[in-house]
């Protein structure tokens, strides 16, 4: 394990014990298999105990694991072919939102997603997955291209938010996101959206108006990050755990509140434990949905999409 979290300590401790026992066994040539079997059983127990009782904040931490698969990982693991397309045709090519035509099991699709970057250098290059307006406008251009050629759109969402910078404001961050919300709601091809990591606010929703919206089990999705929520509502950074609970930002809560269409189970401990398996599960869901959605009349699909988002909200009258 490269990066582990505080709450994974019971597991890490047992793993350490196992490593020690193995070393001793190697040195002394004494048969320790019974001890090892017992310890392995305990590790499994500890894993179940920890991972089946994750708090909101713990899931937020898993969603940010440095080894968690990102858009390009899914593209390379799910797609037979990928042709990356660049630029918004107005200002520049945003590096935080990437996209292009791809083939999945022989079918052409448009894949668009946030790319946070995997190491310090790439993270800076990708602006940590925080897009400027050009990112949203590139995404819209690619969606319109998909619409023109009648290809479904798949979006993979993983962002701490749209970039809150000076140039972003000058070039209309708000307008760019708003335009995407409007255009996506009436786009005449099927749209599948997956929250693969972090889903913060308008920066996530800006490519997330899908016919089907799924969250990976340990991803989070809300109007604000738990840290910012803590700082605004509690006027302190110390309430992020409480904020994570109160925001009901986990996949389970979001599904229970009917704000997403489904939860994609992750390997025990998180997607980073087995990226290939994770990509297979996502791919399977994509193929299943493309099959059903492609049978629908496009007007019915668009109406159902609008109706779905318009039914969200709780009011009393």
């Amino acid at each position, binding site marked *: 394990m490269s990066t582990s979290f505080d709450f994974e300590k019971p597991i890490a401790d047992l793993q350490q014990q196992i490593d020690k026992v193995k070393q001793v066994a190697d040195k002394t040539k004494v048969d320790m298999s019974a001890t090892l079997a017992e310890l392995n059983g305990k590790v499994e127990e500890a894993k179940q105990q920890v991972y089946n009782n994750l708090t909101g904040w713990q899931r937020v931490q898993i969603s940010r694991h440095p080894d968690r698969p990102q858009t390009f990982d899914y593209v390379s693991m799910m797609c037979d072919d990928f042709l990356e397309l660049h630029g918004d045709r107005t200002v520049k090519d945003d590096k935080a939102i990437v996209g292009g035509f791809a083939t999945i099991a022989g079918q052409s699709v448009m894949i668009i997603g946030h790319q946070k970057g995997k190491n310090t250098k790439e993270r800076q290059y990708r602006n940590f997955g925080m897009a400027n307006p050009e990112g949203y406008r590139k995404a819209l251009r690619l969606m319109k291209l998909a619409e023109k050629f009648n290809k479904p759109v798949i979006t993979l969402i993983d962002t701490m938010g749209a970039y809150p910078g000076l140039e972003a404001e000058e070039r*209309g961050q708000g307008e760019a996101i708003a335009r995407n919300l409007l255009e996506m709601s009436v786009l005449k091809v099927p749209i599948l959206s997956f929250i693969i990591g972090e889903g913060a606010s308008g920066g996530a*929703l800006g490519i997330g108006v899908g016919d089907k919206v799924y969250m990976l089990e340990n991803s989070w999705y809300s109007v604000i990050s738990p840290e910012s929520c803590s700082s605004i509502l509690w006027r302190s950074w110390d309430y992020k755990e409480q904020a994570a609970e109160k925001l009901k930002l986990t996949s389970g809560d979001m599904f229970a509140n009917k704000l997403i269409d489904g939860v994609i189970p992750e390997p025990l401990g998180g997607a980073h434990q087995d990226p290939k398996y994770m990509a297979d599960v996502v791919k399977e869901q994509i193929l299943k949905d493309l099959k059903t959605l492609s049978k629908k009349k496009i007007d019915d699909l668009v109406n159902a999409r609008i109706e779905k988002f318009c039914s*969200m*909200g*709780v009011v009393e*009258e």
Partner: protein
Amino acid sequence: MAWFKREKKGIITTTEEKKEAPDGLWNKCPNCKKPLHYTEQVENKYVCHYCNYHLRIGSKEYFSILFDNNEFTELFGNLKSGDPLHFEDTKKYTERLEDSYKKTGLNDAIRAAQGKVNGIDMVIACMDFSFIGGSMGSVVGEKIARSIDHCIKKKLPFLMISKSGGARMMEAAFSLMQMAKTSAKLALLSKAGIPYVSLLTDPTTGGVTASYAMLGDINIAEPGALIGFAGPRVIKETIKKELPKGFQTAEFVLEHGFLDFIVDRRHLKSKLSAFLRMVE
């Protein structure tokens, strides 16, 4: 249907207004600090006649400025917020709502109404900043959605007056989805060929800017209004530099191409009706 509620005519002095004008006669212009008599404020559409500062006003004042003889029919006035998440920070959301009902006399951060503007029948939805910072929760989203449906059904132009700090955190993802909801409805309004004017007033930020406020056939704003996606404090912390003077003002946003024009509140009604006549 209990959707329609008659609004009493004329300007009513609520507790909120009394607070603004402690002795009921005058209060100070927040900009130039000169005393403004209440009757002068009403006459000047709540614009300081010394420095042209646009005082922050709510739906009651905007309706009185825009609707002919202050006559209008309120729409969906009975909508109130639920508490789907049982949210609690330093205070329970339900308590915050109760306090706001008492303090403002409003049911949420938005009111919608149908009436005539220089003879043109239309719907105006207007946000109230005094209600939890004009934050957008389910009621704001739902009232805008229903107002748009109403406009499509009756073929009426729509004016949205935004004044908001953004999404209402106590409704978390429910409030986020109001952005998608209102934008989807505006797509339908646009398809129906119905004019939509978005007026951005001080302040318009966050999720409101990133949805209906920026989607007008024309986007217009009041002078000096703060308009942006991210708040100035967040941007300052991110870029670790002082923000340039005039950053995120209506004038700045106009200069960068996201507004059609800035309108003095005293000319709002005539410009609005002129536009609607031209696209009729």
